[in-house]
């Protein structure tokens, strides 16, 4: 296990009154499988819906109902496993996990215990500082989601809606390979990206499509693992970070006061920013798993797995490597672009010319990341809703490359295309935005400025940095359209400075 081999990083230790402590984190991510119908019934998985409308008699556990497995959910689990570079188990078994709760009408959850569909894999996580680490995946298994209870509708009663009951989940269990809240957040972000690329989970945390159970313990660097606490059902990446920070500090404080950690299940209270014990949960841990007699073992063919493998899209790690390799992008820019599949697709659409050629990747990356993303973020728009199409942005970049417009004018042009649309080349033509490269016209402007400002001409001879003032004046008198390189060169010649 990585837990013992990964050396403690001094930068990630937390300071206690009596010395340093290392945080050890493992996660169980529940990812909702993207499918139209449920894991074992033909009811819809669509979010929302009127109470108990997306419920079949199977989901409501009416007597005599039998589960029939959804082939697409199986395929999605296999795709996810392949995306996690994991072994696919050609035989897996569904078990009953027994516990009593009002939103679990069967009295058990159909899950996979001893024989999951996916075995060991790994996720490579890149941090913003350029460091990277590998998180071991222990397993991925298929299971049913439970229904939803509402506790705030009535003073003495809880309301139960079974729309979510029976929806397929993938539980993805990591090794205890994470060492800080930031690492845990980066891991979930990366896992979410991979699943979204694969199209196996939409990763929508606001709708509960991705939830995390976080196991946290602390130890002195190099010592055996401490007792862990499990924080249940944390539903945002920010909260995962907050829950870990709080929980680690809580455990350190207890240990330093000479106390012991009770192994227990805790809840994260987002309002208070703290974790607290779920007292009653302990006894319920007796799940009495046994193979579900309603379901035969799930047997897959090697050829079926191969077929799914061939259909996989390019994954973020490979895409990032290709962007660096083929377009000469920095690792950071490539990481920003591949974080969402749609963004990477947009970037590639801008790079590709209609004649089959390619635009300069670095220039395109600059425009996409700095101008387009900046503008999209400001308006709260997704890249798929960008008012500036890939073709339009490509045309703007071409106009700069051809020296038809300056970089500064290009930004004005981008704004026009953003708010009014249209063909960038035509707009430049119609509105006279072309850069003046005609040296005669530029010279004329320079001469006029020199003639009007004899004092400045004297000053610049002693202080060459004054040149900037002249450049500014020329650009102003040409409406920003003069080619900056030409202006610079001509000014230097006329003013006699090097």
């Amino acid at each position, binding site marked *: 296990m990585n837990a013992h081999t990964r050396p403690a990083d001094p930068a990630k230790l937390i300071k206690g009154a009596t010395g340093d402590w290392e945080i050890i984190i493992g996660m169980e991510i529940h990812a909702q499988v993207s499918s139209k*119908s449920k894991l074992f019934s033909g009811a819809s998985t669509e979010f929302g819906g009127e109470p108990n409308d997306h419920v079949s008699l199977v989901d409501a556990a009416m007597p005599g109902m039998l589960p029939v497995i959804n082939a697409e959910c199986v395929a999605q689990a296999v795709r996810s496993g392949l995306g996690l570079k994991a072994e696919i188990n050609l035989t897996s078994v569904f078990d009953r996990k027994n516990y009593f709760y009002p939103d679990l009408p069967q009295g058990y959850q159909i899950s996979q215990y001893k024989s999951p569909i996916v075995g060991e894999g790994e996720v490579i996580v890149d941090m913003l500082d350029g460091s990277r680490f590998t998180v071991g995946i222990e397993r991925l298994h298929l299971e049913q989601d439970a229904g939803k209870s509402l506790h705030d509708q009535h003073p003495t009663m809880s309301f139960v809606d079974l729309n979510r009951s029976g929806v397929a989940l993938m539980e993805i269990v990591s090794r205890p390979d994470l060492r800080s809240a930031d690492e845990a957040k980066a891991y979930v972000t990366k896992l979410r990206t991979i699943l979204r690329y694969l199209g196996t989970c939409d990763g929508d945390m606001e709708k509960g499509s991705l939830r995390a159970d976080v196991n946290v313990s602390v130890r002195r660097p190099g010592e055996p693992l401490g007792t862990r606490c499990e924080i249940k059902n944390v539903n945002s990446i920010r909260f995962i970070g907050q829950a870990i920070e709080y929980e680690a500090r809580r455990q350190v404080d207890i240990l330093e006061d000479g106390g012991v950690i009770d192994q227990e299940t805790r809840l994260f209270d987002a309002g208070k920013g703290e974790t607290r014990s779920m007292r009653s949960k302990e006894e319920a841990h007796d799940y009495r798993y046994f193979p579900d007699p309603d379901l035969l073992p799930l047997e897959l063919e090697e050829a079926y797995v191969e077929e799914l493998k061939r259909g996989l899209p390019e994954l973020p790690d490979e895409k990032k490597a290709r962007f660096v390799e083929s377009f000469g992008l920095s690792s950071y820019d490539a990481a920003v672009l591949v974080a969402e599949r749609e963004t990477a697709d947009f970037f590639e659409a801008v790079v590709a010319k209609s004649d089959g050629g390619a635009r300069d990747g670095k220039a395109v990356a600059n425009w996409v990341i700095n101008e387009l993303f900046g503008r999209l973020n400001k308006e709260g728009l997704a890249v798929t809703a960008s008012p500036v199409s890939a073709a339009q942005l490509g045309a703007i970049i071409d106009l700069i490359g051809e020296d038809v417009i300056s970089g500064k004018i290009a930004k004005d042009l981008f704004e026009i295309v953003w708010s009014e649309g249209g063909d960038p080349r035509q707009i430049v033509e119609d509105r006279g935005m072309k850069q003046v490269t005609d040296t005669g016209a530029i010279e004329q402007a320079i001469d006029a400025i020199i003639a009007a400002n004899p004092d400045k001409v004297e000053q610049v001879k002693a202080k060459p940095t004054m040149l900037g003032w002249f450049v500014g004046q020329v650009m102003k008198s040409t409406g920003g359209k003069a080619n900056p390189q030409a202006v610079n060169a001509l000014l230097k010649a006329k003013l006699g400075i090097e």
Partner: protein
Amino acid sequence: MICNEIRLEPMSVDATTVRRIAHLARIAVTDDDIPHLQGELNAILAFVEELDTVDVTGVEPMTSVTPMALIQREDVVTDGGYPDDIVANAPMTEDHFFMVPKVVE
């Protein structure tokens, strides 16, 4: 698998185990009921115990004796849309929700 562990002692349950099983299933059992439930459970266990005499060395645990593969269905929505029926047997409902005594941590 639990079912083919070889047991040397006959398996039986005591009164505490009966109470625990009842509690896990949320079935209210009075102290008066315990002795006869304990007897019934032990009778079932003794009956099933006969299986322990079979030598299953080298036999894969199985959950079905039918030589068939798990049937899979296509991912299409074919069911649901009848919330009236879903809550029809519930003692208390409101707006198609089931109502249960408050359960909150």
